[in-house]
């Protein structure tokens, strides 16, 4: 279980290797960008409601900002920079191709992600993640937004560059994509960012669609962790199950299926809300 940790520490002592023809500043900056934005998101994700410890009220979320979900989406947009800068600065043809593919994929699926989130925002009437969880007290949004949930999940897998959408690092064709020229801990930072992104997306799916910390009997924090782990399991599971898609299939699916579906989902959600109004 501690193997990943040991690997990470090992990578600290690996040679700090910088290829001769890279753009130095950008080459150092790219893994840092990836990691900072991956960590930053956790400021707004609510792990649980306010609890009372030793007579003091302690909220189990760091910050309840009124535009929490926008912060998350903005941070994941900035994450694209880490990848494209890393690929470009390496001055390696495989890296450049990998990062170009990656950015094309990320921006395409970001739209679908955003549209799925809009439907949730309409249903909850707030951009604050805490408010969104509180709005799911009676019924979880996965029941009200099944289509939105499916769109979100597919887009989340694509956003984190995981199989079957892991084209940016398709080993058979691109060596390792944008990470080809990276070694040592800079390489580890890209990977840490990717794994943190998986946890983030799982936590976000839990928050937006599966009622966040809410559940019977068990304490809220346990519920949140359980649901998040279920999604992380799902990520690993589909990676082992599904083959990688082709890049043209990927783009076609994103633009011709997910984006129109997302728009229809938003309109239908809005229509239902209008019709149910007195």
């Amino acid at each position, binding site marked *: 279980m501690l193997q990943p940790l040991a690997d990470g520490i090992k990578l600290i002592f690996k040679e700090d*290797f910088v290829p001769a023809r890279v753009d130095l500043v950008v080459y150092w900056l790219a893994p840092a960008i990836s990691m900072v934005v991956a*960590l930053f998101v*956790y400021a707004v994700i609510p792990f649980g409601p306010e609890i009372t410890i030793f007579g003091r009220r302690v909220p189990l979320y760091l910050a309840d900002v009124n535009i929490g979900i926008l912060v998350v989406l903005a941070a994941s947009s900035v994450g694209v920079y880490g990848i494209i800068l890393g690929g470009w600065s390496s001055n390696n043809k495989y890296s450049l191709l990998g990062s170009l593919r990656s950015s094309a994929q990320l*921006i395409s699926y970001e739209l679908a992600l955003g549209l799925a989130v*809009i439907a949730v925002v*309409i249903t909850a009437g707030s951009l604050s993640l805490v408010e969104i969880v509180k709005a799911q007290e009676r019924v979880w949004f996965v029941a009200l937004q099944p289509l939105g949930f499916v769109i979100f999940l597919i887009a989340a897998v694509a956003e984190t560059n995981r199989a079957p959408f892991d084209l940016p690092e398709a080993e058979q064709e691109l060596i390792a994509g944008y990470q080809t020229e990276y070694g040592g*801990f800079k390489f580890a930072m890209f990977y840490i960012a990717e794994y943190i992104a998986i946890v983030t997306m799982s936590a976000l799916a839990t928050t937006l669609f599966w009622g966040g910390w809410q559940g019977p009997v068990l304490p809220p924090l346990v519920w949140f962790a359980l649901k998040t782990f279920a999604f992380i399991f799902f990520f690993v599971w589909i990676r082992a199950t599904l083959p990688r898609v082709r890049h*043209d299939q990927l783009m076609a699916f994103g633009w011709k299926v997910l984006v129109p579906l997302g*728009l229809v989902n938003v309109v239908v959600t809005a229509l239902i809300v209008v019709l149910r109004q007195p």
Partner: protein
Amino acid sequence: MPPNVVVDWLYVGVFAIVGTIMAALPLAVVWLLAPRADLPQKTLTYESGVIPFGQAWAQFNVRYYLFALIFVVFDVEVIYLYPWAVVFRRLSAFAFVEMLIFVLILLVGLAYAWRKGALEWV
């Protein structure tokens, strides 16, 4: 702005700074601890064992620009939809019709791009 909001944003700011340190610290530690031995052959860019020719900073496929342009259009649309989605319950049905027209215009744009082949990847 109520003071609570300011405090919450302060937390977000602190988190951003801590995140930056978390990224900068390992880089600095590695820079200090990791061994270095640069040989001319080793610092060559990897190109399947062949000595690399030319720079990788070349022109690339125009498709990427097309998708980037369509993305900008639709991303702006999504951003416009957010404020509408927040206050939607407090608006009348008229707001729904307005946004329906907005979405329809953009769908026509998507259909046009589709028809023109901008969404084909060849």
